[in-house]
């Protein structure tokens, strides 16, 4: 039996809003070939399992329905590794200013 996610859990739902053939006429070819997808987070309105249809109450208080895809979804955006092409810029321009005797 699939585990049910508890009512009130902070979750994300996913829905296909427009299928590949239903896209706006002005959309370029590569975008026409893929569906328009939607992801929204909210509090689960009733117990549901991952991968099943579920209802949520969003932060604006709306009820929305979609496929339950994540529980307590993480914010994963970050900085990443330093970029070597940027790392030496400060040293270079400070040297330029120092040579000209213009640094404050």
């Amino acid at each position, binding site marked *: 039996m699939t585990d049910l996610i508890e009512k009130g859990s902070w979750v994300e739902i996913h829905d296909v*809003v*427009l299928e590949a053939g*239903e*896209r*706006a006429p*002005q*959309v*370029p070819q*590569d*975008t026409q070939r*893929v*569906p*328009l*997808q*939607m*992801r*929204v*987070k*909210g509090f689960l309105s009733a117990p549901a399992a991952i991968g099943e249809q579920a209802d949520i109450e*969003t*932060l*604006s*208080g*709306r009820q929305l329905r979609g496929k339950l895809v994540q529980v307590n979804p993480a*914010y*994963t*955006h*970050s*900085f*990443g*590794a*330093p*970029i070597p*092409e*940027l790392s030496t*810029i*400060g040293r*270079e*321009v*400070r040297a*330029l*200013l120092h040579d*000209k005797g*213009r*640094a*404050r």
Partner: protein
Amino acid sequence: MTAQSYAAIMAQRADIMRASVGIDYERYTTGRLAFDYERLMADTGYDITAARAVQNSTCVGNTPLVELHNITALVRSVSASGKGARIFVKDEAANPSGSFKDRRASLSVHEARKRGYAGVAAATSGNYGAAVASQAAKAGLRCIIVQEAFDSAGIAQPEIAEKTRACEAYGAEVMRLSVGPELFYMFLRVLRDTGYFNASLYTPYSVLGIETLGYEIALQMQEQTGAFPDAVIATHAGGGNLTGTARGLRKAGAVDSQVIAASVDLSGLHMASDHDFNRKSFTTGHTGFSMPFTTWPDRADVPRNAARALRYMDRFVTVTQGEVFYTTQLLAELEGLERGPAGNTSLAAACVIAQQLDQAQSVVVQETEYTGAGKHPLAQLNLARRMGVDIRRGDPRESTPGQSIVIPEHPSQLAVVDIDLDHVRRSYLQHALESLPQGESLSDIDLAFLADETRISPTRVQEILNELTG
């Protein structure tokens, strides 16, 4: 056609818009194409004093104007003798949600509350979403932000991922969509389903809210240098930033300050392409928005766009992505200001334009924005590498948007490319002809309107129209 289909919702566009903006745009029509722009703005009731009072009540505005002494010195080191104007930046990151967009959101949210709307909604993937969410939180209104956030592979643009987080931090619902202009279709559905106020970027409220920025710059420059600025550079996308700033400068009496638009060159990349989406290292302030919106502003989510940049720009330049990343590093390491990407497009242009002016003159970069995870050169360049974009040091002129980013090796390699404004005006007038209903002709009122729009004489407008139809 189902009730939710693209065509069905778009057919209700006019009614949904009327209910959600609270402005009857039809009232301002004066010709086939012409409308009374100044009356549309004035009828909101917000002059500079009223706008400042609303903004003061939520700590929006009154941001510092900072002189960039070390960047100015660096610019002078590569300038001809006697050249190298003083460079200043308006530190708009000091606003409550970290950007000048709080100014744009403030009057809309104030108006929504005054008119009794239960909430506000906005279609935006940038700082504006966080600004509306922040202002709505303070006003006790509900808020929905609709974003274009990820490609078909599920890869989120890191800057937009950060805006998702910020909006949710302010308690807003964020509807994240994959790539495509149907964002507007989903936005209409949200407005229809909720009855919320449309806090569009392009209403008079939004643009009037930015006038205070230009106004403050004029006053602060008077105070700090004894004169109005010789040039003010605005990062240019949809046109509101430049329009509002220029109007505010004029209202403060700074009528001779040159107003310069600066955009990142993303030519060759399609704005609605799923493939190109994550090959752009800038989400706004680029030519993908500024070119279409300058040559025809009325493509926005309201019937008449209050942001009409061509009326106000004296010059329009582009810079490359690599130059903006280089300049971002200069701002952090020479001035101690680690700031987000948007204003640094203008700063890259300022480093070049200052070289064209005398040392006694001044250039103002009119905004900064906050920086953080995702919203940072490191995040953008790491994603670019992952998407196969070549990143190297060298001559930025050798870069190709979407394929390569070339970061200068020396400040003397910074340059701007001037966009021919006569070409832009001609393109605007071509769009005007295309939007004229079949069988209709232009009246004298229309010609006068088009002259105001393009800043050329009605006679010259007629000449160009004759050439285009000839």
